[in-house]
């Protein structure tokens, strides 16, 4: 274990676990979590797991990389890493991000302005290994020495004299999953360097060349999505059954049956939800159905495989998986003859299909895509349905999903909705484009294996928890029920786990839900409360 201040060279030379996290050094949390006893302990990996898998970074594990059995295997993997790096730096193999990557690799002034913008670095008590520039500098050093083959004087002058070995590669792979790609760091850079992008590209290198990625994102994520129809594993028949169940549930809740349109040719809108909603928060797609039905929106869902799941995990780690899912979504929309694709409350799906895939979809696959938020704003603000804000008379704060806000610029419509229907709405600080990630970004929310969830709730989501607590400090008594509005499935998942990890409902009375649930809860025609609070 490294005792003194960590340096880049330690990535390849230090033996065993590189750093150990100490909870007493973590950023302090507000009341009622301002004592050491209020912090749940972080779980350690078992000796068996440590023996089998590479976990020599910080004692947590996002990717299960089996330890190589021989020196030859290590060398083969290191060489493969270098092959991948060469491809990352070639325009044919990596046209998708070639220019942004080259710029970010070549122009960092090492001023460290980005560090304090990173919630993971700050929350960890400024642990060096999580500094946004740490992994970027490691990659720059490898590029200079092993790809550009700079001379020894140059390497000495630039401080890029590190050794590349398997330890370094394995630690870099794990370190690529200690950043949520929220890109808050890039927002503060006076030059425009983007450490989030470098992390993204590092993830791509591991996936596209070495086939290394967290199984929840790849094998059980995008591969399952493309092969079975959904990253949740939901097959076509199960989707149809789920909708039937939702229709029954809606009838029970609001006293009338609503049919959710499926595969309706020529509809105005193809609405795609994150399929995780159907399983974990069925009240969310149900709320969309109730609102769209009441407002007379002409839409359809798709029962085609991939078409009923908006997620696109490739956004986080693999350009080809990203393109495959985006092309499938567009093809389904084209076959249905819809005028546009609208994405439900899922931040990364918003960005994947609206922003990133914008330069993959060409010709008749370039079907207009938009967020659900402006349509909801139009319905609420222009009073296309009858709403009574008094039905939401409890403290509410809004979480801004990074993909929707900082990375897409959808900032105000969700606020205008809440101001209209939630009289006790208050902002977190900072908010809008300067928000903090939920801690579950870039796939972390769906990575529940081993002790990674502890790291997520203890470190990467810590800043969000602090923000939520700060927003409700005046009503922190658990007898006052209050709600976090998180209009994104992955953010909701991260916040759900975060609140459970800190036992927050019991201790503070804080719960969470999506945006559409607030709208339905305020609908005059819906007599019973739509929002369901957890039970004590």
């Amino acid at each position: 274990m490294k005792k003194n201040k960590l340096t880049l060279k330690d990535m390849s030379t230090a033996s065993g676990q590189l750093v150990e996290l100490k909870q007493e050094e973590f950023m302090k949390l507000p009341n009622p979590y301002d004592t050491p006893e209020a912090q749940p302990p972080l779980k350690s990996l078992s000796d068996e797991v440590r023996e089998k898998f590479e976990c020599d970074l910080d004692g947590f594990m996002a990717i299960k990389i089996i330890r190589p059995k021989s020196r030859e295997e290590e060398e083969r993997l290191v060489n493969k890493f270098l092959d991948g790096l060469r491809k990352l730096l070639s325009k044919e193999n990596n046209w998708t991000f070639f220019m942004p990557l080259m710029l970010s690799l070549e122009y960092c002034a090492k001023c460290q302005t980005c560090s304090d913008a990173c919630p993971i670095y700050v929350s960890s008590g400024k642990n060096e290994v999580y500094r946004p520039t740490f992994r970027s500098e490691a990659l720059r050093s490898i590029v200079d020495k092993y790809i550009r083959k700079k001379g020894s004087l140059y390497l000495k002058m630039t401080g890029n004299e590190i050794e590349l070995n398997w330890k370094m590669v394995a630690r870099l792979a794990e370190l690529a999953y200690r950043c949520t790609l929220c890109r808050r760091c890039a927002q503060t850079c006076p030059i425009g360097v983007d450490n989030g992008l470098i992390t993204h590209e590092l993830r791509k290198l591991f996936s596209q060349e070495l086939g290394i990625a967290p199984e929840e994102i790849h094998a059980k994520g995008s591969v399952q999505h493309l092969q079975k129809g959904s990253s949740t594993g939901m097959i076509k028949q199960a989707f149809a059954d789920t909708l039937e169940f939702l229709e029954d549930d809606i009838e029970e809740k609001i006293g009338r049956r609503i049919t959710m349109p499926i595969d309706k040719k020529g509809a105005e809108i193809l609405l795609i939800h994150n399929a995780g909603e159907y399983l974990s928060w069925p009240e969310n797609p149900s709320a969309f159905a109730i609102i769209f039905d009441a407002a007379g929106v002409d839409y359809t869902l798709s029962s085609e495989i991939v078409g009923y799941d908006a997620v696109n995990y490739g956004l986080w780690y693999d350009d080809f998986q990203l393109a495959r899912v985006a092309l499938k979504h567009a093809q389904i929309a084209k076959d249905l003859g819809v005028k546009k694709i609208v994405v439900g409350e899922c931040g990364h799906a918003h960005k994947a299909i609206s922003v990133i895939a914008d330069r993959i979809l060409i010709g008749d696959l370039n079907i207009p895509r938009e967020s659900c938020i402006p349509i909801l704003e139009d319905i609420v603000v222009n009073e296309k349905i009858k709403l009574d804000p008094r039905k939401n008379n409890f403290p509410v704060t809004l979480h801004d999903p990074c993909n929707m806000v900082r990375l897409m610029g959808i900032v105000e419509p969700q606020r205008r909705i809440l101001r209209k229907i939630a009289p006790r709405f208050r902002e977190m600080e900072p908010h809008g484009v300067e928000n903090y990630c939920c801690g579950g970004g870039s796939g972390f929310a769906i990575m529940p294996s081993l002790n990674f969830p502890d790291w997520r709730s203890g470190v990467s989501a810590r800043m969000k928890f602090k923000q939520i607590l700060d927003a409700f400090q005046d009503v922190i008594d658990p007898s006052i029920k209050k709600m976090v509005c998180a209009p994104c499935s992955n953010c909701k998942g991260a916040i759900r786990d975060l609140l459970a990890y800190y036992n927050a409902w019991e201790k503070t009375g804080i719960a969470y839900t999506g945006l559409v649930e607030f709208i339905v809860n305020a609908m005059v025609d819906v007599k019973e409360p739509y929002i369901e609070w957890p039970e004590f």
Partner: protein
Amino acid sequence: MTWLPYLSYISVLVLVVGIFAKVIKYLRMPIHLRWELYPIPHEKKDGSYFEEVDWWKKPRKKHYLNQIIFMAQEILFIRALYHHNRKMWYASFPFHFGLYLVIGWLALLVGGALLKIFWVASGLAETLLAVAVVVGVTGMILGIIGCVGLLIIRATSSDLHGYTAPVDYFNILFIFAVLGSGIIAWVSADPRFSIVQEYIRRLITFSAATTTSKTIAWHIALFSLFLIYLPFTHMTHFFMKYFMWDKVRFEDEPNFRGSDMEGKIAKALTYTQNWSAPHIQTGKKWSETASKGVE
């Protein structure tokens, strides 16, 4: 010192070719996927066109003036550093602003020299020279203060020390030497910068440019060497910001059917990729790999 003008000519040539080569290198790069980051100053405050229903049917309003103002604040006053790293800004702002003034000083000297070449006995040239003294000396002093501040911060800050390489100290010291030699030349040999301007005039007219002052010669030599060195360093971020901000961070141009952009994307999709992970069919065109799916 007959070598001095040759060094000056070489420095200008290397600088121009170096900058040109870098710009061309980036201009020739293929189109990339969008990777914008908000706020984007040519959009509405903090938000984007994605906030509107049917955004693609509406005329795009790009507030270019806002973007120019934003970038002017960023370049002239190092806005991001002011907001997010105030300690560094106290050194970085005088450093950069000093350098901008030195560039202005050089422009005034060149301008004055051109007036003298093409407009004999011009009073305007003398005025420019007088302004150049104020601008140049202020710039050099600010730059020197900035250099000293940056050296201290980099050497003493626990955040920066571990990430500051020898070349970073060398770069600051090099600029310190260029600016310091300028101040020495001004104080000891050329209080009106008329000798330096005459040197520039002779360079422009390909006359025998030289100077008898060793301090001025040292300053010109160091300045020339710095211009030769500059294109090979990350200090070229002063113009590469165009790509980093305009072509990546603020680049939110949508792709419409039949547009030039669509043509560029179609071309990029024909690139052959050879990634070798099992889920990628190596050796195929990018578009084929993407449309084929996982096997």
